[in-house]
């Protein structure tokens, strides 16, 4: 069974679109968002969002600033609350008052625009803190795991460094490794390359591409249209708190139907 799954996964490399639609037909969504509304005071920032994220899917959310895409992402792991509708993550209803916030969050890795590494800890300590304190792993096991992840993001030689001594791109790769160290079921990326110098964008996107290839479920808010086109299984365009258009990257970028999508893409492409 395991072997076949691995083989199937390899297929995903070569033909993303067909295997994705196959997945979507068969499996239950990992994340469901059902007509979610959110207000900041009287200002409605999310106006009834419906969306599903399926296992192993890479969902890319694009849109102008202030469109609510980051807010939506932050609602998924309870960094923001919402007033109407429902979000279900891994079978847990987030509006349930008895919900254990920490149990939902540990299953969703989050990568922030500003990296948010812990500056008083070395790279290795950043990676092992949550696995030890939350997952109750032994220190040895957590370190072994962390070293594998650092190798994966190409930063094995930096485990003893403090975040301040790293470049922005290196910090963001550490942040990705830190989120992965919790073995999350999905990864949320909130404009992961927006705070980076241009020459460092690629190294971070490459790590994300590797992750996508390995079958990680990802929700990515980004302005990197190249990444969206190449790696995304599905692209969502948001504007003014609504999902305006969604589809495969080929459809959304190739033949956008909505005027707002066309206007946005003409500005960024």
């Amino acid at each position, binding site marked *: 069974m395991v072997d076949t799954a691995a083989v199937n996964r390899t297929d995903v490399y070569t033909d993303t679109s067909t295997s994705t639609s196959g997945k979507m037909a068969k499996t239950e969504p990992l994340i469901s968002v059902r007509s979610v509304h959110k207000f900041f005071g009287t200002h409605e920032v999310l106006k009834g969002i419906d969306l599903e994220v399926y296992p192993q899917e890479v969902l890319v959310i694009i849109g102008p600033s202030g469109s609510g895409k980051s807010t939506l992402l932050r609602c998924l*792991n309870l*960094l923001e609350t919402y007033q109407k509708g429902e979000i279900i993550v891994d079978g847990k209803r987030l509006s349930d008052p008895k919900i254990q*916030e*920490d*149990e939902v*969050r*540990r299953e*969703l*890795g*989050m990568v*922030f625009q*500003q990296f*948010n*590494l*812990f*500056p*008083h800890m070395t790279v290795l300590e950043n990676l092992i*803190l*949550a696995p030890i*304190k*939350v*997952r109750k792993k032994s220190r040895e096991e957590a370190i072994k795991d962390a070293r594998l992840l650092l190798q994966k993001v190409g930063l094995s030689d*930096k485990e003893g*460094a*403090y*975040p*301040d*001594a*790293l470049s922005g791109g290196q910090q963001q790769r550490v*942040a990705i490794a*830190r*989120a992965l160290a*919790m073995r999350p079921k999905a990864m949320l990326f909130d404009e992961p390359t927006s705070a980076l110098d241009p020459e460092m964008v690629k190294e971070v996107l490459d790590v994300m591409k590797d992750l996508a290839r390995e079958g990680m479920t990802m929700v990515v808010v980004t302005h990197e249209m190249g990444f969206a086109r190449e790696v995304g299984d599905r692209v969502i365009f948001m504007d003014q708190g609504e999902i305006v258009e969604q589809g495969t990257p080929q459809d959304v970028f190739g033949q956008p139907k909505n005027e707002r999508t066309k206007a946005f893409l003409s500005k960024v492409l």
Partner: protein
Amino acid sequence: MSFVEQINQGLSWLDLRVDIIWDYRDLFIRGIYYTIILSMSGVGIGLVLGLFAGMAKLARSLWIRWPAIAYIEFFRGTPLFVQIMLLHFAVLPTLLGRSPSPVISGIIALALNSGAYISEIFRAGIQSIARGQMEAARSLGLSHGMAMRYIILPQAFRRMIPPLGNELIVVLKDSSLLSAIAAPELANAARITMGATSRPWEPYMTIAVIYLVITLILASLVSRLERKLDYGRHSRS
């Protein structure tokens, strides 16, 4: 001629008499000891009070926040001298049913007063840590308490060292007010010496120099600690 007499003669043109201090040296040595004990204990307890009051002031619940605000505002808004008098002659005798020792009253007064100032140092320190740190910690599944303990407080504490050191120096100097309740500290030693000899210059110049030496030592210890705890800013590889 003894050593003290020699110095005395050397300073005779100033009309200063070092032998007075020498005669009362036990009083001054005890004074140094108690000044340090009183201010260290006061700030030590004040740190605990300040941590709780500072966190309480950041709490969401009004029932937790309000008492903390009342405490902080009272002790920052009234003179320490008045607080010492109230505690030693009114509050503590009423609570205990007898006169408290000046040392106990002194420690309590300094602790309550410095706790109020330290709570503001804690609050500012906690709030100065970017919100993203808390969000990153929570998004990894850490509870609020764990995030405070492992992420926010260790960083906040580093930023609090300079103002805390400053507070320790302030308390050390303010402990001189405890001479009003006859706590056996430095200013009390000077007061007794002046009363017994009718000489104001020698005892007060002496304790001024002693206070200055202690505060200078403390200031250098604090800046050394600050440098030692400064992480990751030395090298960029």
